[in-house]
């Protein structure tokens, strides 16, 4: 028979102290393992391609993001990231209500395009009330109006070897000695041809505001906000992401975030 008597308070104290010590000592020491370039980090990152494969397998690439009702729009769309680009070329376009803007489509296409806003607005439009999920954790519902990316890509006639659409944007993220870094993102052709993937020029039945990416921003509804490139300047179709900046396919991807942001 084992009857052990220990005062509860002392026991609780010991447990908490031990737990804190493990956490205190543990965290700092584990930091180097999580830093970019470490083998452990590479192993951790492999989980992202597993998530990607499993979600693609389950959805066959065609599942639709939930669309909401107008009554679910309860606030103006929360703006994040760049909300007011200060780039001269952008400001010049903005001063003219973007009437001189044109979207360039190039790369592995049979037919390079340059489309101004009037032309884009005359193409078949799609409006969708969706929930924007930020990687930080918040969500916001809004109505986006624009042209399906598939419509534009069909006009551009992609080469069979084109696998990704790369979006180059107006907004400068960093200014350094080696020049400035403007926002860039990429999605694969499955997401590019998805029916809810649109280039939006309208938000909540009004012209897309500057804070949310005017004149044109990407919506990739089944992924987190950082994939939804704002202030889109051009679209380039490529066979590989290797040659784009540091090779991970996007501004945030080159700073440690996963290319697949469906989770």
């Amino acid at each position, binding site marked *: 028979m084992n*009857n*052990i008597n*220990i005062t509860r308070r002392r026991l609780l104290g010991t447990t908490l102290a031990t737990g804190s010590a*493990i956490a205190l000592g543990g965290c700092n020491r584990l930091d180097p393992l*999580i830093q970019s370039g470490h083998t452990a980090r590479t192993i*951790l990152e492999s989980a992202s391609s597993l998530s990607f494969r499993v979600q693609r397998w389950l959805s066959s690439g065609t*599942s639709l993001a939930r669309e909401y009702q107008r009554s679910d729009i309860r606030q103006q769309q929360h703006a994040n990231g760049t909300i007011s680009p200060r780039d001269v070329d952008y400001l010049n376009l903005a001063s003219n209500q973007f009437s001189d803007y044109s979207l360039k489509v190039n790369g592995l296409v049979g037919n390079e395009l340059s489309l101004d806003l009037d032309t884009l607005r005359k193409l078949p439009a799609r409006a969708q009330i969706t929930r924007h999920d930020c990687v930080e954790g*918040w969500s916001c519902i809004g109505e986006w109006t624009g042209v399906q990316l598939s419509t534009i890509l069909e006009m551009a006639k992609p080469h069979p070897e084109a696998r990704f659409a790369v979006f180059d944007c107006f907004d400068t993220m960093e200014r350094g000695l080696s020049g400035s870094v403007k926002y860039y993102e990429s999605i694969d052709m499955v997401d590019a041809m998805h029916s809810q993937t649109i280039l939006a020029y309208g938000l909540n039945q009004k012209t897309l505001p500057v804070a949310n990416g005017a004149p044109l921003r990407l919506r990739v509804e089944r992924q987190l906000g950082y994939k939804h490139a704002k202030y889109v300047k051009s679209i380039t179709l490529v066979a590989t992401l290797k040659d784009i900046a540091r090779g991970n396919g996007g501004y945030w991807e080159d700073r440690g975030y996963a290319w697949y942001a469906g989770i």
Partner: protein
Amino acid sequence: MKWPAKKISTSHGATNTKLILRHRFLTRVTHWSWAICLFFLLLSGLQIFNAHPVLYIGDQSGFDFSNRILEIGANYKTGTGFIDLFGIRLDTTGFLGISKTNGFDSARAFPAWLTLPSGQDLAGGRRVHFFFAWFFVFTLLIWLVSGLVNGHIRKDLIPGGQDLRSLKADFLNHIKLKFYHTAQYVSIQKLTYGIILFVVFPIIILSGLAMSPGFNAIFPGITEIFGGRQTARTVHFLFMFILSGFFIIHMIMILAAGPINLVRSIVTGRYRIEASPKSTGGSSDE
């Protein structure tokens, strides 16, 4: 365990005890796998939470309206940290909202010693979290399949009529930190472990998946069951809290009931019990 106690050695000392094999290999491996996962998931989860330390109810986050139930933040004017829960604000300077990082005050929800990585690094936190989330799910699947096949779940975890009758007595014994070392789990253990494995683990996994926009498009119903993405996020956080509470009680019970014997039983599987078959109703240990 209910299967015939494997006699490894008998008649130990004066108190007539014997060593049995209490935990199978897979039970031990999955136990430690969960322990590792929970450590990494908790600390990386708090890192992720720090990127937006507010919890809401519903589909979206109220910026122009109020549906928040919890907020951790800092008041820069006064240099104080706070937690705001259902509108009740508590000063938590030094721990939540404002805490020391490398000797300097920094404004962050959870302090550096509770997050992984220790500095503010959402990308790193997400990498750690999703890796161990997969690890956690695979462990649970292995445990579930093996537990159904080898009878661990039916024999050791599902409470029987006798368990239900002795529940009150077992509960009171645990509160008083009075333990008896028996071959099987007692009712309170079966109930607790059962709830953790069949309720808390699935809910914490599903509420996590409900936040994934990709998963949301594949199985919209899961997010709806939780009452929207932001409620799912709140549930995920709440169940993290429940799981942490379980962990603390689990540690207290182990320390109180004889850590050497118990840790051995979950490392090597060998566990010392009283040799003479005793009528149930007493309490065992964790």
